[in-house]
């Protein structure tokens, strides 16, 4: 009886779902302006002691599977970082609502 839990959403090493998906070597896609902004904010918050890489990981890895795969890379980061800042009271949760 194998009672190993299924891998978490982000744990993609060897995932059968993507076994036949090609990797596109030409897909350089350097970050766009959105990605660079999110990345810069992450670094500034980290330097100011407001965010650790492990906190950011928790926020990304807790995303529901459908959302994880639907969102772009830096969109996942933004969901995580903004949520953590609200959770820690650095900003207000209402600040993020439309």
């Amino acid at each position: 009886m194998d009672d190993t839990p299924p891998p978490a959403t982000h744990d993609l090493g060897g995932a059968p779902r993507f076994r036949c998906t090609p990797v596109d070597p030409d897909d350089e896609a350097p970050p766009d302006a959105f990605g660079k902004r999110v990345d810069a904010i992450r670094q500034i918050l980290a330097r100011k002691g407001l965010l650790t890489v492990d906190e950011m990981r928790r926020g990304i890895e807790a995303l529901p599977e459908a959302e994880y795969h639907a969102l772009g890379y830096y969109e996942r980061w933004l969901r995580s970082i903004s949520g953590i800042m609200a959770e820690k009271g650095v900003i207000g949760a209402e600040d993020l609502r439309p």
Partner: protein
Amino acid sequence: MAAPPTGDSIALLERFVAALAARGIVSEEEIATQIERTDRASPEIGARMVARAWTDPAYRALLLRDGTAAAEQMGVSMAGAPPLGVLEDSATLHHLVVCTLCSCYPRMVLGYPPHWYKSAAYRARAVRDPRGVLAEWGTVLPDGVGVRVVDSTADYRWMVLPQRPAGTEGWDETRLASIVTRDHLVGVALPSAA
């Protein structure tokens, strides 16, 4: 190709930036300065480290022993970055770097990770079918060469030291660095003199 962010995401980012700015935590000026600084890191730094290791045995030893110190010797600030490990290819063993859990990458010496490095397909397949992934770059390892896949983590980053290609005898460091690309430093391709 990476899809552009949704309108919802763009709006969320602007609300987030406004909230941080209103509380004096992050300013637009700081963001611009940070982007400028991050943009300066590129695979040319890693390429210069490799070229120096190919020509200077003492530097090669340092690079393999302590990648972080070797990067700092090239003038790169590694403050706040996780340790850098360097994987030495040989005539019988090649290395391929992946981050199966996300996208951990030695950004201080290679710059932003390319989109494919962060893709689900690369993360899933690099550890299951590394030779199949290499073939998508047209990379075929010679007979008898093993491949070792190394998983980068949030706490430790990896870069490959490829073998110096034949036909580069007598080249200086600058010329050697010019044939080393990001793909060689991740291990999806091998440098050549051509």
